């Protein structure tokens, strides 16, 4: 889906970036990471479903009876979503290079680190969403609205410079802003690990805040409603 959207919307992006005077290459340098970030955030709902599915199958109570500490149990359930987000981000960036002539000027290693930290943020957001929501419908609504909102405000859809006021001022509060800045530094500016470390640090801090909030609010014994 992100690849199709990139193909369809690339000319629009090109025009918009040209008008804003921020076009560097062929607009792929914004469109490809933008869609990678937005679709990564959209996995929050799918990732959270794994918890609700366990409630529907009654396997959550059974899993809790295992000789496994709760952080390990939750962590184990979040490993697959982490890898999924990482793989999807990698695939979108890869297709960007192969199909849309996106040029990566900087370090691929830095890109991988950035993608991994972004995946960690998505997982952390997933955990917080699961902790907050009681039903799968709530999760789906909250995750999709929140993901699209922070994708938009953070500049994953259109560059922050093109956003109406006061959204550009709010953009640095979102993780998408720092992820997009990081991708921009590597892809367009040719930056390496050192250059993206501030963005990585901020993303990690946001990940930690959400993770701590999630841990504080998560109640393992609270029954959730899946598909019923």
């Amino acid at each position, binding site marked *: 889906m992100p690849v199709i959207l990139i193909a369809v919307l690339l000319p629009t992006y090109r025009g918009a970036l040209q008008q804003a005077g921020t076009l560097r290459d062929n607009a792929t340098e914004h469109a490809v990471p933008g869609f990678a970030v937005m679709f990564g955030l959209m996995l929050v709902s799918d990732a959270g479903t794994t918890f609700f599915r366990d409630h529907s*199958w*009654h*396997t959550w*109570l*059974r*899993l*809790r*009876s*295992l*000789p*496994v*500490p709760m952080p390990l149990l939750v962590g184990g359930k979040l490993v697959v979503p982490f890898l999924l987000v990482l793989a999807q981000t990698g695939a979108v960036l890869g297709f960007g290079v192969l199909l849309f002539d996106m040029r990566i000027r900087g370090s691929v290693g830095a890109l991988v680190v950035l993608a991994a930290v972004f995946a960690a943020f998505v997982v952390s957001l997933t955990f917080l969403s699961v902790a907050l929501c009681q039903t799968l419908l709530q999760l789906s609504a909250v995750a999709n609205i929140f993901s699209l909102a922070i994708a938009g405000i953070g500049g994953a859809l259109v560059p922050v410079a093109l956003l109406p006021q006061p959204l550009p001022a709010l953009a640095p509060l979102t993780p998408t802003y720092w992820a997009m800045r990081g991708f921009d530094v590597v892809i367009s500016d040719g930056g390496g690990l050192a250059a993206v470390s501030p963005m990585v640090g901020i993303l990690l801090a946001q990940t930690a805040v959400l993770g701590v909030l999630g841990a504080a609010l998560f109640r393992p*014994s609270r029954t959730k409603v899946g598909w019923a």
Partner: protein
Amino acid sequence: MPSSEPVLDIDDAVVRYGNRRVLHGVSLQLRAGQVIGLIGPNGAGKSTLIKAIAGLVPIESGTVRVGGVHVARHPVRARRLMSVATQELAVFPPLTVAENVRGWAALCGIPRPQRHQAVADALAAMQLDELRDRKVVELSGGEQRRTHCAMAIVARPRLLILDEPTSGVDPDTRRAVLEHVRRISATGTAVLYSTHYLQEVEYLDADVLLLSSGRIVAAGTPSELIARYSTATVELTIRDRQADGLAQPRQERRPISDPVTALPMLLKDLTEESGDVVGVAVHQPSLEDVFLRLTQRQRGGSSSVV
């Protein structure tokens, strides 16, 4: 035979859901090789007791120890010694039977070299060999229940807790489950077996724990409970001497403590006093009679604890 050291030791456990007390000071000891049949009406607190043992609900007061390990303080260590098959069917539908059992064995921490044999044994015990490669979602309810039980037994725990394992299964499956419980208890596993089918408790030769409204209202072997709480009755058909020949014989039911010795005397007295006894049927009390008597008494407001 059960050994002296309890595998499960519950002392005065109280569990509360919000403002409602659901377990009122339950105490229980279960030894290696012993089977306890946990019975009681719906809402008696059986599943809550099981959850309390597994550390899945907090205990307000009292203690639960499994293999000497304090469950509330060291839940992970305690859970290494036990395995719980919850009342609700808890399987992973998209996986095959073997994947469910193998995956569970891995999660229970069974080392890889022993895992293959443990899975094979659990599948065989629940007669799942032929279904091992079928996805659970394609199976009948009874077959899924067998998979559910196989996951519980694969870890070969010291304490096995089965919460209504034969609910909704056919007689073959029920027999397989019961036979396995008998086999593993003979090898030293302590089993807490919750059920609504009282004949299963008798079949397992289990000790009985009758829970009602969160209290233990009776504990002992089935024969002890029957002797303690119920008496045999004799149903007599009597033709009155004074009645004319067309009158129907009347029926009378009387409690009788020991039919073998007391019945001849009763018949002699009745014959002398009122008429000819033309029919006699002795009704031996069952565990069900005890169950009904004690749980009805509990519902009626009495809270006697045995």
